[in-house]
Structures are given as C-alpha cells and as structure tokens.
C-alpha cells in the first residue's frame, strides 16, 4: 500500500472510529436539552484527546512498549493496580454499552427486542476479535463508521440559521428548565465521552502491535491532528441535528433509536438506513476495541504475553480475559439493565477516572529514559498540564454532581 493511501486510510479510520455509543448518546442528549450551549465542551475534549493520544502514540513508538506496561514500571505496582481496577471497571461498562449499541442497531432492522440479539452480538464480536486482522478491524469499522456523516448531510439539508447556531455555540446560556448542576453534569458527560480512557489504551497497544517506530510518528500525528478533530465535527453534527429537530418538540434522548430519529425526519428511509449502519459500525468497532483493551490492561499489568498478533496458544491468558469480558458484558445486559443508563454511567465515571489514565502518560512522555529525544516540548507540557488541572477538577466534581442531579435527571 502506498504511503499516501496508508495515511489517508488512517485519517478516515480516526474520523469514523472517533464516535462510539457514549458520543452518540451524550451529543444527542445535550443537543436535545441544551441546544448548542455545550458545543464548547466537545472542542475542549477533542483538543484534550488529541494532545494525549499523540503523546501515547509517541510513547509507544519511542519505547516500543504500551502505556499500561510503562505505568506499572514507572509508578509502581500499587498505583498501577488502582489504575488497573478503575480502568478495567469503566472499560467493562463501556464494553457492555457498546454491545448493547450493536444489538440495538440490529434490532432496528429486525424489529425484535435488542436483548434477544445480545448473545449473538457478543459471539460475533468475539469471532471478529479472534479471526480478523488488526488492520482490517480498524479500517473496516472505522470507514463504515463514516456512515455517520449522514448527520452532517441531515444538518445541511435542514438549512438551519447558521448565524444563530454559531451565536448559540459561542454564547452558551442556561436553558430555563435546567439548573447549573445539570449543565455541569452534562458538560462532564460530554468531556468524558470525548476523552474515554480505552481509546488511549487501544491506541497505544495497537501502535505496539503494529510495530510503530519513530518513522511512524508523522502518520501518528496526521491521524490524530486531522482525524480526531474531524471526528469531533461529527459529534457536533449529531448535537446540532438533535438541537434542531428534537429540542423544539421537547424530546429528551433516553434511547439509542431516538438518536437517529432526526435523520429519518430530514432524509427519509435511505438516510435512516445509513445512520443505523453508522451506529452499528461505530458501536461494533468500539466493542472490539474495549474487548481488546480489557485484555491489554490486565495482561500488561500482570506481565503476561499479550497481543492480537500473538497466536492464542502463545497468549492464552490475554485471549481468555478478552473472552470472559465479552461474555460478562453480555450477561450484564441480559440482566435487563437499561443500556443507556450503563452508557451514561460509563462516560461519567470515565470522567472521574481520567487523571488516572492521563497523568502517567504525561510523566512517561517527559522521561528521557523512555523517550530519548522525543520528550514533550515546553508548549505541549503547558497544554498538557492545563488539561491535567481540568481533568482533576472534573474528577473531583463528577460524583457530587451525579448525586445532586440524580444522574442528570
């Protein structure tokens, strides 16, 4: 494959792979409740994930080792264990939510309860993890996820008053029916959805699996600097469409099918089918990533042989963790728990645990022992430190806000 095509494919994958069930729900829900009053949070979140994903990719390319492996070595087993437990729990919730997302997307075509489809979806995800190559997984689901661009098409087709939308986004105001606490809670949910920790674990472990070296850094930067912001635009389009169609009708988003309803209203059957395909691809891709991330974090902490490229007989414990996580995620859903509640909890608790993921990356990215000459520059460190402060404030505020707003109700 030519270098240009590889880069192009990588950028497309980053755009399509940026959105998962957390982004879908959080963006549609905030659009329906707050209009574009929280659009600024998406921008803040995108800059944050760009800064830290680039750092994680650079750490992997210069040290040849993934983030979690280095966290244990650099910060010690006790701190790393806290990190592991928190990350694994949140990753598990996210995995369950993504499996539900796939099942719900299929149920919209089959017209049956999504619960009936959960076992088949879990099996399918495991088969793909087991059999499909790493590159194929990334590209197939990332590019299929581009179907979500239908939200951009729907927005353009709506011909909204762009000036008024821009004003709403740049002059955020609290809607009369909301409180400052719900505003802050949903800001945290959006931020958590944009900076979900599994994205970094998967990104850095994937870089190691694909054998990134310093020569791949340019590709890494292009993927991150171009792909993620364009993915962020996709998130904003979902929010804007919800604010144009659902908000005037007083609809608050409580289910995944409601997220694609505006596309049906604006673009009709074809648009709806494309949107459902996009939801399927986004959640399926993320289910694979979170399934693998479960294996990555545990195996890297415990020093086991790990990797999708490693034959299962050579890394049995890694593959077992992936399999057990998928099975437990499916069983969790079969208990009848509300998948949107699981999604909301996963993104909000992600926000609470963000410093645990990003602080070690910042420490390692400044250590010449691991990074050689590729340590962070002063400007990048200033931005990263600012973000670390934001992450800490968000982490401290999350649980009290969750209790005060009763989960954003």
């Amino acid at each position, binding site marked *: 494959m030519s270098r240009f095509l590889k880069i192009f494919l990588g950028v497309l994958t980053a755009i399509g792979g940026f959105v998962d069930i957390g982004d879908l729900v959080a963006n549609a829900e905030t659009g329906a409740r707050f209009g574009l009053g929280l659009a600024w949070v998406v921008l803040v979140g995108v800059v944050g994930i760009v800064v830290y994903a680039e750092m994680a990719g650079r750490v992997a390319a210069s040290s040849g080792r993934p983030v979690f492996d280095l966290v244990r070595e650099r910060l010690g087993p006790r701190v790393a264990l806290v990190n592991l437990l928190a990350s694994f729990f949140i990753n598990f919730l996210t995995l369950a939510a993504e499996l539900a997302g796939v099942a*719900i997307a299929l*149920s*919209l*075509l*089959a*017209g049956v309860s999504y619960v009936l489809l959960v076992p088949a979806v879990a099996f399918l995800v495991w088969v793909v993890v087991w059999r499909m190559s790493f590159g194929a997984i990334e590209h197939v689901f990332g590019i299929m996820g581009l179907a979500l661009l239908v939200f951009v098409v729907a927005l353009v087709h709506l011909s909204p008053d762009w000036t008024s939308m821009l004003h709403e986004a740049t002059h955020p105001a609290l809607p009369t*029916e909301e409180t400052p606490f719900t505003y802050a809670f949903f800001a945290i949910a959006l931020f958590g959805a944009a900076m979900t920790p599994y994205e970094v674990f998967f990104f850095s472990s994937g870089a190691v699996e694909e054998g990134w070296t310093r020569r791949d850094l340019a590709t890494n930067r292009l993927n991150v600097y171009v792909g993620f912001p364009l993915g962020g635009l996709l998130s904003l389009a979902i929010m804007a469409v919800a604010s144009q*169609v659902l908000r005037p*009708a*007083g*609809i*608050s988003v*409580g*289910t995944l*099918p*409601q997220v694609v*309803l505006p596309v*049906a*209203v604006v*673009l*009709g*059957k074809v648009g*709806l*089918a494309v949107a*459902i395909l996009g939801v399927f691809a986004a959640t399926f891709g993320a289910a694979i990533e979170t399934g693998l991330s479960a294996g990555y974090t545990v195996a890297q902490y415990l020093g086991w042989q790990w990797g999708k490229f490693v034959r299962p007989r050579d890394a049995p414990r890694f593959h077992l963790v992936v399999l057990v996580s998928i099975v437990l995620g499916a069983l969790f859903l079969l208990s009848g728990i509300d998948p949107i*509640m699981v999604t909301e909890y996963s993104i909000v608790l992600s926000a609470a645990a963000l410093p645990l993921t990003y602080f070690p990356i910042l420490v390692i990215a400044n250590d010449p022992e691991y990074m050689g000459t590729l340590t962070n520059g002063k400007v990048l460190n200033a931005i990263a430190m600012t973000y670390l402060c934001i992450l800490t404030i968000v982490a401290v505020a999350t*649980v009290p806000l*969750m*209790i005060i707003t*009763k*989960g954003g*109700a």
Partner: protein
Amino acid sequence: MRRTVVLVALAVAFVVGCAHPVGPARTFGAYEGKARTTVSSARSNVETVRLAVDALARGNSFGPYTAVVVSDAEDALGGLQGTFGSIQPPDRRADALRREVDDLLGDALDGVSAARIAVRRSERPDTAALVESASALAQWLAAHP
C-alpha cells in the same frame, strides 16, 4: 472492618442517590416538582412517537424501526406512570394533582399503545390522538412552571 462498613455505606448511598430519580415528596412543592419531571418525560416520549409515526406515514421510515421506537416509549410511559403512582401524595392538594397527572399519563399511554398496535399491524396509526396528548402535556407544563 469499620473502614469497609463506611465504604460500603457510601457505595450504597451513591447507588441509591443516583439510580432512583424519584424519591419521596414531603411537601406539595416537592410533589409538584416530581409531577413536572414526570409530565416532561411523558411529553418527550409522546412527541418521539408522534415524530416517528409521522415519518412512517410520510414514507420516511420503515416499520421495524418505528415499532422499536414506539415500544420503547410505551415501556417508558408505563414506567413513569408506575413510578409516579408509587409516590405518596403529602396532602389533599397533592391528591388532586395526582389524579390530574395520572389522567394525562393514562391518555398518553393509551395513544402510544394504539400507535404500537397499528404499527405492528402495518396499519396507519392515529396521529391525532398523539397530537392531542402531546398538546395536553405541554399545556400542563406551561401551567405549572
């Protein structure tokens, strides 16, 4: 041991505090606030069904999708009615409010159930009932700011 008990108590308080959005109402004001939240959610569900059914009627959507949307809304409305009905009204004024909201929720649920039956039978749902119900819910919300 004591530390474990404190941690467990905190965890239980957290789960209870977050998972159940409708707690007890000790005053009329609190009860009215819960009624408002319930009616607002009901309106959201009825409007969702109205939009989905309208899209289907215009040929902008397909049956299985609409059936799932309508069933989800019906389940949600049933849950809202059950949850609101389980809250103890604190005084006589609250009794009247309870009847009023219960009637609204009942009408909403009837309209959505009828839509679900029609969609599952591939018949044309009665959108007028949904519009009427959504309008009644919106008017109630306007009257209880």
